[in-house]
């Protein structure tokens, strides 16, 4: 039997649930020469702020066991470049779901950026990043308490009719209360998890490897943590969840979906294997066959 990989996400049909996560796939355009982008269910674009940002000093990358730390610090060309150049250019060559990942330093900036993204026909869905651990005075500050996460959610919902997912940080004590606050404030869905704040030290130099000292840890090592949070949030909220964190294989996609994810984002794995997403998608039908799954949509949240 032909396997049905498609999923429905807030009324958008994804040909499969696999989406490169924001920050690990540029604007998609960087990989257009090397991959067939059109096999991807969606693409979450690089996190964008109002003004262009250089980001953090280098080194921005540190290898870890089963993962890595990044401290890119939201390098991006700014919201106008996203809506007038990057997203339309991707739309011309890509027929899947285009997700703009929006960051900000104030509630007003989040709303402004989302209003600009709302006006861009190339963008299908907004993912609001209240969880970047690599910028000061913004990013994660909005995602670590329910009131500020709700304030950002309300502000962006007021300026867009596109589906809004709030991307949450795992660096909190009670993920469920934050997810619920976003749902109550009108979010259409939740993406989780962003990276875990981490650190490495060069023991010869006696200094942190990352110039900014700390950065976001991701990779297969965080998969169980991400899966647990996806499970908790999916079962506590009525809105769909995009699961993200340490996904490296087709098996991880199925596991995330059984925990409650409607779509699954692949992050750090793209950095070690640029064709990770196409390879995962290609492996899904045979895995579904082995597991007796005909429609991926049927397994979402199947684990009680």
């Amino acid at each position, binding site marked *: 039997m032909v396997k049905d990989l498609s999923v429905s996400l807030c009324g958008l049909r994804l040909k499969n649930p696999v989406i490169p996560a924001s*920050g*690990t*796939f*540029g604007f998609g355009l*960087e*990989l257009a*020469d*090397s991959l067939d982008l059109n096999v991807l269910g969606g693409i979450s674009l*690089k996190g964008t702020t109002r003004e262009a940002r*250089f*980001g953090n000093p*280098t*080194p*921005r*990358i*540190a*290898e*870890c*066991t*089963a*993962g*890595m730390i*990044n401290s*890119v610090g939201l*390098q991006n060309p700014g919201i106008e470049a996203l809506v007038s150049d990057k997203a339309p250019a991707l739309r011309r060559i890509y027929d899947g779901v285009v997700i703009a990942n929006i960051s900000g330093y104030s509630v007003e900036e989040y709303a402004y950026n989302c209003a600009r993204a709302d006006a861009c026909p190339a963008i299908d869905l907004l993912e609001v990043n209240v969880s970047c651990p690599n910028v000061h005075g913004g990013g994660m500050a909005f995602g670590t308490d329910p009131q500020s996460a709700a304030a950002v959610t309300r502000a962006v919902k007021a300026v867009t009719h596109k589906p809004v997912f709030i991307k949450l940080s795992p660096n909190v004590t009670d993920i469920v209360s934050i997810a619920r606050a976003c749902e109550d404030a009108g979010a259409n869905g939740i993406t989780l998890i962003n990276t875990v704040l981490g650190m490495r030290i060069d023991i010869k130099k006696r200094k942190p*490897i990352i110039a900014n000292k700390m950065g976001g840890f991701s*990779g297969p090592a965080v998969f169980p943590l991400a899966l647990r949070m996806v499970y908790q949030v999916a079962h506590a909220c009525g809105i769909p969840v995009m699961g993200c964190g340490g996904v490296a294989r087709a098996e991880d996609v199925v596991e995330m979906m059984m925990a409650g994810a409607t779509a699954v984002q692949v992050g*750090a794995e*793209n*950095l*070690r*294997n*640029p*064709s990770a997403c196409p390879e995962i998608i290609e492996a899904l039908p045979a895995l579904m066959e082995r597991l007796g799954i005909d429609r991926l949509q049927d397994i979402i949240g199947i684990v009680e």
Partner: protein
Amino acid sequence: MQKRLFKIDSNDPVARDTLRMGLRTDAPVAIRSGQFVDIAIPGYYLRRPISVSDVLPDGVILFYKVVGEGTKVMAGMTPGMELELLCGGDPGSQSGMTKGMGSGFHPEKCQEAALLVGGGLGAAPLYLLARELLAAGKRVTAVLGFNKADEICLVEQYRALGVPVHIATLDGSAGTKGFVTDAIAAAKPAFDRFYTCGPLPMMKAVCTTLDAPGEASMEERMGCGAGFCYGCTLQTQSGPRRVCADGPVFDKEEILW
């Protein structure tokens, strides 16, 4: 850029902590001087970007230094073992995957005579450049700097091409005692363009001392190695540039020394 399996042909020590690895694959490779391959090392999460020192019809030659755990594992590998590389694709392929890793040097911008200035393993990518320059009928002089005589490598290969090589060592154990800039001052080679690869302070000295136009190959800790993670960004005269994809080779004027 494409992912390809290569088989280790040889992996031999050539100087202190320095090895030469020959890798072969089953189809032609398209790689220019200054480009690199990105090697997956079993048991380690990220790839290791290593510049290409020479290109065979179906393979590459790399020189690498054992600087950490990943290169230590590489040093223990034996002929016959396979490595998965990201590299430029088959030049005959229609798949659009022929673009290599990194920008590469620009031998075509040299008019008549080139000066190659390498520090340590910076001599490795400049060797392929020397071959390209010679094939285009240019004259080539190399100035290679090392800390000590026991680190010297590639000099015989350059000389086998007919390239005059001037050596500088910091401790004076071979060639001119001092920096590459001292050896350049002593040798007074004629050139209209220079190309440099090596430690940042050396390249800074070279680029700010020499009047001629020049190019420098920069190094940075990389994530993806292919231009989409923005982990290795450098601030330049023309704004943020990715070392892996916009570089690693930049015009000397681009770099904010």
